[in-house]
């Protein structure tokens, strides 16, 4: 007991303080739980989404990639036109086509083959073409192989080899190179095998990189997408196809002409060079602008289709 008026000895004081500190540190978890019942339940139902113009990007990449590329553009279009626009995500090219046919897609952003297909089948109408980052509104297909694969140096060397392509509907990743092969006298039977990677450009590159296939065909510019994943120096471009009209925005015949015009006008309004906001939107979408387009621009594609035996699809 400490007598009144008598100071506590310093060591005792330090000891007490230390003990208190230790106890505080030892016991102080300091979390206050919130009371919640897991047994009180009730049925819930999700509210249905508001009706909107649906916008779909041909599932060339993963949904998240597609989302990240086009979300800003979708928001811009909605804001600019005053229309409610929502991006939807088909799983495959076929799914995209079928959804368009079902009316689940109002605005389709697709490669020219799919467009030709949609136009032929469901009356899709081209409204604008994109200008690629290299400043062109066309694009090409590429034949790639591992750099150390000495057996493949030219288009002809691909004969009897294993081919991995993006998708039977892929323009740059299948049809353009196929046209090139046909021009060089090679038909589908001249390859050891033709394998599709499920619509993903990345998978084609990774398949070739991994050595699973002798060569692959991709859209020009796809190598950049995977440069942070693999050493793209290990990949060589064997050959490149002739340029074809690039990706195209088409609208469903169900969409009103007025809405389609508004959207086209908004697209054409985007100014990559002078407006920083527009530039950001376009950079996310990986192109630099739009050019007006109509169905006639896609006749070379129809020609290619015939060449490779896809006519009539």
């Amino acid at each position, binding site marked *: *007991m*400490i007598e009144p008026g008598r100071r506590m000895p310093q060591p005792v004081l330090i*000891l007490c303080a*230390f*003990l208190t500190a*230790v*106890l505080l*540190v*030892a*016991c102080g*978890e300091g*979390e*206050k*739980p*919130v*009371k*919640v*019942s*897991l*047994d*009180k*339940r*009730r*049925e*819930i139902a*999700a*509210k249905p989404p508001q009706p909107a113009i649906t916008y779909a990007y041909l599932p060339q990449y*993963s*949904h*998240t990639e*597609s*989302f*990240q590329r086009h*979300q800003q553009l979708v928001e811009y279009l909605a804001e600019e036109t005053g229309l409610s626009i929502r991006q939807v*995500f088909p*799983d495959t090219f076929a799914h995209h086509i079928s959804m368009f046919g079902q009316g689940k897609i109002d605005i389709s952003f697709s490669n020219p083959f799919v467009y030709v297909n949609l136009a032929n089948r469901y009356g899709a109408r081209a409204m604008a073409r994109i200008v690629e980052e290299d400043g062109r509104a066309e694009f090409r297909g590429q034949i790639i192989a591992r750099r150390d694969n000495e057996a493949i140096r030219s288009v002809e060397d691909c004969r009897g080899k294993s081919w991995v392509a993006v998708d039977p509907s892929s323009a740059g990743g299948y049809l353009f190179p196929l046209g090139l092969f046909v021009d060089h006298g090679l038909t589908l039977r001249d390859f050891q095998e033709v394998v599709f990677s499920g619509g993903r450009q990345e998978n084609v590159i990774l398949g070739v990189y991994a050595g699973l296939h002798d060569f692959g065909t991709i859209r020009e510019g796809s190598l950049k997408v995977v440069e942070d994943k693999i050493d793209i120096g290990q990949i060589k471009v064997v050959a490149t196809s002739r340029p074809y009209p690039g990706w195209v925005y088409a609208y469903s015949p169900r969409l009103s002409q007025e809405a389609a015009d508004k959207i086209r006008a908004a697209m054409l309004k985007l100014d990559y060079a002078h407006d920083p906001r527009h530039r950001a939107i376009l950079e*996310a979408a990986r192109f630099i602008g739009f050019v007006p387009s109509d169905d006639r621009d896609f006749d070379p594609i129809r020609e290619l289709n015939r060449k490779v035996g896809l006519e009539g699809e």
Partner: protein
Amino acid sequence: MSKHLLKGLHSLQFRTKITLGMALMLIFSGLSIGLLLSAMSSRALLDEGKKRGMALSAGLAFRLAEPLLAMDFLQMKNLIDNTHHQYGDVLYIFLTDTSGNVLSHTFSGGGFPHDLLRVNRDSRRPQPLLLETERGAVYDFNVGIILGEKNLGSVRLGLSRSKMDAQIRQQRLISLVGTLGVVSLGIVLALWFARTVTLRLNRLRESAEEIVKGNLNVQVGVPLEKNCWDIMECAKLDCPAHGDTRRRCWYLAGTLCPHCRGKEYPLKIESCRHCPVFRYNFGDEIQDLAEAFDVMAVTIKNHIEELTEREKTIARQQELLKTIMNVTPDFITLQDKELTYRFASKAFCDYFNLNEDEVIGKTDFDIFSERQADLNFHEDKQILLTGHSLAKEITFKRPDGQRWFHIVKVPVADQDGGIMGLLLTARDISMLKKIQEQLIQSQKMEDLGRLAGGVAHEINTPLGIILGYTQLLMDDITDQELLENLQVVEKQAKICRKIVADLLGFSRHSQSVREAVDLNGSLREVVQLVEHAFSLKGITIIQHLDETVPPLDGNKERLKQVWLNLLNNGADAIGQDGVIVVRSRRGTGGQIEVSVADTGQGVTQGNLNKIFDPFFTTKQVGKGTGLGLSVSFGIIKEHGGTISAQSPAPVEYLAGAVPPFGLSGPGTVFLVELPPREVVY
């Protein structure tokens, strides 16, 4: 209470204190560290659990982005079910869109616990949130599904804390058991350590107790494995350290090692530190203390022996001094500046009939009368002030007679030259004074005799003429009346001639005829002469004559005159009826002693030294001339002897004088000592 506790602690054994202190320290440190570590690891475990929950949720959120965009409910369900089933502590998972709609969840059995939608709605808040549910504490994680800057919805995951708590409990148990184990081990070590330390301290204590009891032959230090002479391999037997197993050489003076250089402890210790002996034998502080203790014991023992020897010497000297002081008949006292007695000799104490204790520490005012003390005080103060010593003689009367003292008072100086006290010495000089008086008396007698002789010689001639002419006239005168007158003149003239003859006899110093005298014979002749006349007065003369008394050289007639004078004096002192004892014998130094003792009235002490003076008499006027004893004194002196008187006469001189003759008075004895005849070979 704290006082009792402190007292209790204070009275504990040192060993217990060390053990208790270390144990407390260990328990305190162990508990502190244990608690701290336990808390830290608990926190780490919790954090780990939270991170795991966060990782699960984030992973799930990442994987759910695709099906969420595609609105692929099956895949959403599959993904969350997969995770739910994979981890047992994941209680629930559900997925909401940006509007808060639950798109998929893992709750089975119908319905959704809508409480969950109420809490932790914002994924940007710190996660997780602790929930208290019917199934225990649950960490609820809310992780947003974000693509770029766009939020698509969020994943909510409930992770049960019970598994984490179980892990924490297990870890705490391990911590506790570990801490207890370490503390126990520490206490055992503390016990061992305390025992090791206190064992040596106890030896020190026991040795100290032995020293207190007086036993200085103790050894606390442990015997050495190797002594200095073994290490140095020296054979210097005359070195003080050689053979001394009790003391370490660095404590000893005069060791003969080359680097000791004859220095003493502690001057040599600096060089000793580099010595191989020191390095080999020097222990810890307790060993050092024990060895220093041994050295101290030996040193104390030596000092005590020296002191005892000195004490004995001092005691001897003190005893000697005391004996001298006590035996000396002089008074010696020492007083300090306040005149308080610091020392008083035995003679002083005895004289004043005091004990030493009654003097030491007292002043004159406590011992003497106030008047005397006051006198002494002023005198002593004067000496102390002036520093001059004082010498004086004092006299005072005591029942046993007049006493004389010669007093010297000397101031005593201390080492600084200041006066620190007063030394008094006093010597009894009464005897010296008495002898001085006797000397003066003798001188007086001699002068008187010379005067009397001169007078007698001058009177003798006219007196002879007066007597001659008187006798001639008597022959011629026939007138009877005239003749009778002339006869009176003749008679008185004859008396005068006798007086003159006596005076001449008293003062004569010329050698008369000397011959061998038979002492006893001369005594018998005189006794025979007076015996008859004395018997008429009832006086008996008893003779004890030693026949072996040798003859002496002298004048027989004059000696007979002495004996006659002494007998007549005795008879006059007796008056009627008494005894006179005459005795002769050989004295111890070859002297011949004659004593004539009577049973008369005696002589007073005051008159005793005057009886040999001429004309001194106690008889009635006309009874005696007062010259008898003076003449006898002169005759004995002429014979080279001495005469003295004692009164009352000691009984031994009155042997045979038995009653009825009686001892009518104290009596007087006259003692005559005469030298025997010198035999010439």
